[in-house]
């Protein structure tokens, strides 16, 4: 087992012995289930309306009516719960004075950061994996196209990974977990809201830059079933940038 794998194993163990992962997981799955139920309910109501208007069996598109709406709403849930998952990663190490132990162990700072990030990403992907139950169950009652669902899941995975990297970075800033959670929540919310600013500025250079920085349109395209290389580059580079910033923050503590 390499040092990175050791860090991953230790972090996973830390998550599963604390109530945090169970509480966050339960809340995430509950809200995901509720949202699915609501959108399926709306789709059902629309189908009844169409049947009354047209007569006969109405053809409704579950991809548009359920999954696109569901994936769009999940953004808000991720925005709130992922900072809670990441807040402990470095803040707790600082608080419990184990940070010094990690930095004086023969392991690179990069390995520590990657280990911690991968551990929380695995937990998030595990939770996301459980939500596949929703389309699987719906498949029994209706026909729909799985391809936009897979791109939606790819979008949720990439968006979640970006959110987690912001959370890891915020956690490295402070020894207070609440502060870490708020910093990452504030950053992610700002990245959401600047999309509105971008559309206000319209098709100007500043408008285009601001819209690009926000994750909204990149995520929307994936949810619509479009895989654009520029979106993959956006999520990849955003994630790498945040982990790089984390490295600089951790490194800077040595100089303070």
């Amino acid at each position, binding site marked *: *087992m*390499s*040092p990175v*794998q*050791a*860090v991953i*194993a*230790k972090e996973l*163990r*830390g998550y599963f*012995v*604390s109530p945090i992962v169970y509480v966050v997981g339960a809340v995430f799955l509950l809200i995901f289930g509720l949202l699915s139920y609501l959108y399926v309910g709306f789709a059902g109501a629309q189908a009844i309306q169409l049947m009354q208007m047209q007569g006969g069996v109405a053809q409704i598109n579950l991809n548009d009516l359920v999954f696109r709406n569901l994936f769009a709403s999940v953004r808000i849930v991720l925005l709130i719960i992922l900072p809670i998952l990441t807040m402990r990663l470095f803040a707790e190490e600082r608080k*419990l*004075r*184990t940070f*010094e*132990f990690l*930095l*004086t*162990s*023969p*392991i*690179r700072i990069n390995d520590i950061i990657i280990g911690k990030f991968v551990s929380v990403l695995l937990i998030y992907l595990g939770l996301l994996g459980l939500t596949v139950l929703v389309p699987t169950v719906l498949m029994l009652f209706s026909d729909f196209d799985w391809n936009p669902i897979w791109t939606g899941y790819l979008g949720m995975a990439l968006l979640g990974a970006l959110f987690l990297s912001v959370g890891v970075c915020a956690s490295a800033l402070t020894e207070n977990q609440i502060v870490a959670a708020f910093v990452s929540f504030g950053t992610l919310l700002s990245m959401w809201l600047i999309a509105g600013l971008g559309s206000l500025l319209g098709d100007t250079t500043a408008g285009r830059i601001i819209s690009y920085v926000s994750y909204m349109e990149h995520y929307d395209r994936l949810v619509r079933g479009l895989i654009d290389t520029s979106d993959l580059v956006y999520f990849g580079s955003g994630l790498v940038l945040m982990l790089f910033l984390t490295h600089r923050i951790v490194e800077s503590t*040595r*100089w*303070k």
Partner: protein
Amino acid sequence: MSKIPLVAANCRFESETTSVSSVVRTDITFVIDVQNITKRYGHHTAIDRVTFSVAKGEVLAFLGPNGAGKTTTMRILTCFMPATEGHARVAGFDCTDQPLDVKRQIGYLPETPPVYQELTVTEYLTFVGRLRGMTGQTLTAAFDRTIGRLELGAVRHRLIGNLSRGYRQRVGLAQALLHDPPVLILDEPTVGLDPKQIIEIRELIKSLAGSHSVILSTHILPEATAVCQRVVIINKGRIVAEDTPEQLSARLRHSEKVSITLKAVPSDCEMKLRAIPGILNVLPGQAGGSFLLECELGRDLRDEIARLVVSSHWGLLELRTISMTLEDVFLQLTRHEDHLAEPAEAMVSAPAEQTDA
């Protein structure tokens, strides 16, 4: 690896100058070699031109009041933070340029034991071993050896969060010893332990001497006397003294002191004692019949004193020399450091020349 002959210079306390015995060390391989390291936080200088070295197998105590710079020095040696100026080398590796190599050579116990409360002792030590690249049989053997050495067998499957302060300290020490490093840096290793555990840990550190080079910081001065071969006293970021505990007390002693207790105390007793050549002062002791005699430095007058007492039939109940304790040395050095003109230059054993091993 370098060999550095160290020459201790003079030290001054207030208006008095005490000659410091020269410590010339040759043919010693230094595992830790610190040369003029300075650490500044903004305008605050935490340590100022600190120079010392530790030979292979030597146990060195780092003494100093709170905020003296002990932890900062240890953090620089363990590559947690870089020095603003100067160089530190551990086992031949430079702390700034080869931090990973240095870290592999060191076992470090910080002031607060760095333990994860959600892990069991076994899980924690396994994690530490893996961080240090140990696997399979090597890890198992190291684990069993360390658990046995620190008597952690009974608690190996318990969560660290449920352990007492003393056990946590021992687990912290276990992580430092797990990979059997040539260099151990222990920041107050016996804090929080009960007296029995303190003795056990001291015995453990003593047993490490010879095969390991150890630096330990402590507030407990008898610990330094009991465990260490050499003591470095640091105050306000500067080294104010560096020597063996015995040499340090000898350096600062201005006179030999002899305590006597007599059965009968006639009125002319004090006068007759003063008449012995070499006696500087006679002070009455706390108990009845006891006296503290100050003698000229370097003269052992016990024989003359005993002869006078016996021939005068005063009844000699006790006669003993009084040596300066490390507490006295420490207090004298740290209390009067403010008055020293150039303490760093004056006190520290400075390397005169450096030759390759």
